[in-house]
């Protein structure tokens, strides 16, 4: 049985959207898949050595909030300073209480399982990002690099 391949493009840099790429990549690796994740634009926040990921209720009416706040709490108030940090702290607390792994933990499990991570060189240049801020083992490449693997993949996801 030849190894199946999973290719993922990670484009989002918030705490909530950090989960799908790492959950799917680590699980696929455990199932015997060869996995590559291509991080582009805001997705590059997920490969920082010290990720500072946040979640926002702004522009996200689907986000469940405590005390039914999503029903009565005015959207305008959600833009107040400190709200984002509060939402992030609450989300992290909830995740810990429910036994959901941290992003760093899932990312380490991916690295241990030889999930290959590629950073979009164009984004790094565009935002003047410093490669020394990113995790070790990260490779740099462009769209053609992604297609080299994605073209042979069994599953290809855009997240």
């Amino acid at each position, binding site marked *: 049985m030849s190894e199946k391949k999973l290719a993922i493009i990670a484009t989002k840099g918030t705490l909530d959207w950090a989960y799908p790429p790492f959950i799917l990549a680590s*699980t696929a690796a*455990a199932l*015997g898949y060869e996995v590559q994740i291509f991080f582009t634009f805001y997705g590059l926040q997920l490969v920082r050595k010290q990720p500072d990921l946040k979640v926002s209720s702004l522009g996200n009416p689907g986000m469940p909030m405590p005390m039914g706040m999503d029903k009565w709490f005015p959207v305008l108030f959600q833009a107040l300073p400190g709200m984002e940090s509060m939402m992030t702290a609450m989300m992290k607390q909830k995740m810990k209480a429910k*036994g959901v*792994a941290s992003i760093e933990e899932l990312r380490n*499990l991916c690295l241990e399982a030889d999930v290959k991570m590629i950073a979009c060189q164009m984004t790094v240049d565009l935002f003047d990002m410093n490669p020394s801020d990113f995790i070790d083992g990260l490779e740099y490449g462009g769209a053609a690099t992604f297609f080299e693997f994605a073209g042979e993949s069994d599953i290809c996801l855009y997240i």
Partner: protein
Amino acid sequence: MATFDQELDATGLNCPLPILRAKKALATLQSGQVLHIIATDPGSVKDFEAFAKQTGNQLLESREEGGKFYFLIKKS
């Protein structure tokens, strides 16, 4: 209860950690040895079935008792 060679306590852990921990534990076992897993994530019932099917390791037993889920997986 059936015999097993190693036990993995995955209680309190949520998807995908029980599967990932099980995979790690299985890697330390010899072919034919059996891993016993205890989990509390209800999603793990279907997940361990799928895991066994895709990895070729045999799911010998899957049962629920007192809100916990117990699995026996034989390494292929």
